């Protein structure tokens, strides 16, 4: 058995980083999709729907992700549909992030001044036209920085799913596998840290470039 860190291990970790990326993007897309509709529903419907969905968001935000994951898995097991942890991981992450996205979306919709909406409706636009051509473009600019922040958080949170045994291993899990053989925890963990750091940095950098180009000003919503 080989006890030293090899090029293969680096490759293995890069593969892990790729899985981290896949997890982030897939649950990011699904979660944003769900969150968008929840946020929208909360902005425009009755008080009852507003509060019911508020409970959904509250629950998501006050139960640890890891617990949501095992709870979901055990529920699917007793329901008779045991699920592959990788898939249930993506689903849990999606639902989890949707709660945060919904809040940001709601803030984005509310950030569009009432007068603006009134004037577009006054021009004869339908509700949907106003929403698609006025509210979304304006709101999008306002929430873009917060949304990017959520996606960064999501990427870091994917590390959680791995320890529950999802395969293929993502970045942190693959580092752990290497540690079990090589016994150089600090080096490998720092290496994993560098991977995460670079990925976060890259996303932040791209987002900032995009913000600059489109004159988006940071508006923190948390």
């Amino acid at each position: 058995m080989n006890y030293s860190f090899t090029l293969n291990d680096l490759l293995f970790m890069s593969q892990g980083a790729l899985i981290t990326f896949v997890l982030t993007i897939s649950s990011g897309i699904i979660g944003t999709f769900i969150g968008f509709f929840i946020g929208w529903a909360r902005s425009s419907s009755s008080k009852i729907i507003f509060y019911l969905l508020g409970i959904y968001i509250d629950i998501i935000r006050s139960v640890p992700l890891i617990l949501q994951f095992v709870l979901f898995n055990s529920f699917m097991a007793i329901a008779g549909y045991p699920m592959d942890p990788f898939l249930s991981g993506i689903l849990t992450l999606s639902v989890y992030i949707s709660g945060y996205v919904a809040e940001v979306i709601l803030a984005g919709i509310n950030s569009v001044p009432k007068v603006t909406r009134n004037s577009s409706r006054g021009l004869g636009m339908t509700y949907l036209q106003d929403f698609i051509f006025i509210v979304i473009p304006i709101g999008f600019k306002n929430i873009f920085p917060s949304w990017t922040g959520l996606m960064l958080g999501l990427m870091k949170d994917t590390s959680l799913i791995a320890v529950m045994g999802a395969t293929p291993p993502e970045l942190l899990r693959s580092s752990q596998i290497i540690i079990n053989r090589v016994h150089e925890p600090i080096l490998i963990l720092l290496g994993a840290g560098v991977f995460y750091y670079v990925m976060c940095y890259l996303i932040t950098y791209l987002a900032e470039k995009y913000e600059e180009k489109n004159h988006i000003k940071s508006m923190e919503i948390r």
Partner: protein
Amino acid sequence: MLDYTFQWKVVWKRLPDLFEGAILTLELTILSSIIGLLIASILVIWQKNDNIFLRNFTKTWISIARNTPALLQIYIAYFGLGSFGIHLSSYVAVLGAIAFNNAGYMTEILRGGFSSVSKNQNQAAKGLGLNNFQTYVYVIYPQVLKTVFLPMTNQFIWAMMGTSLGIIIGLQELTGMTTFLQSQTFRPFEFYFIAALIYIFISKSILLSSGFIAKKYLRI
């Protein structure tokens, strides 16, 4: 689904154990938030220090805390430091890592709080003859408190979520304890469900009381 009968009695019997876990969760949350806040209060000053070393130190701390997963930070504290002959218990590792993480985020919250108080307030207080200490205690800090109070509450809840990672290195805080109990009784869903309720109850209590304080005493 149809042939499964829920058995809540098992959970009921082990409720004291769950509470024990919940208390450890709360303890870790409170301690890591206090330590994080103390460090953040220093970092926010160093952030503007003339000394370039202190400035960069702060910058590095914040960006590592924010750009790497909390779980990785716990791993480094628990496994990684072993390489230097430092062997932390899982309790200390979780406490240290979450405090480290808290400090990074809280520094940013405090910075935002200070920048929201206009420089003129300082001049107005000094102009009335208040000394530096009085200016901070009676004029600047109360205003900073107003802006940071709710973000800090959110950070506190986040810290509580973070302590659940303790399960991964064998700590029996609420999540860890629950996992231990369900493995003995083979009733995972019931146990996890009740644990989730306890988390929700604690978060909600914190949010409600901080909302109350904000309204009643801070006029937010």
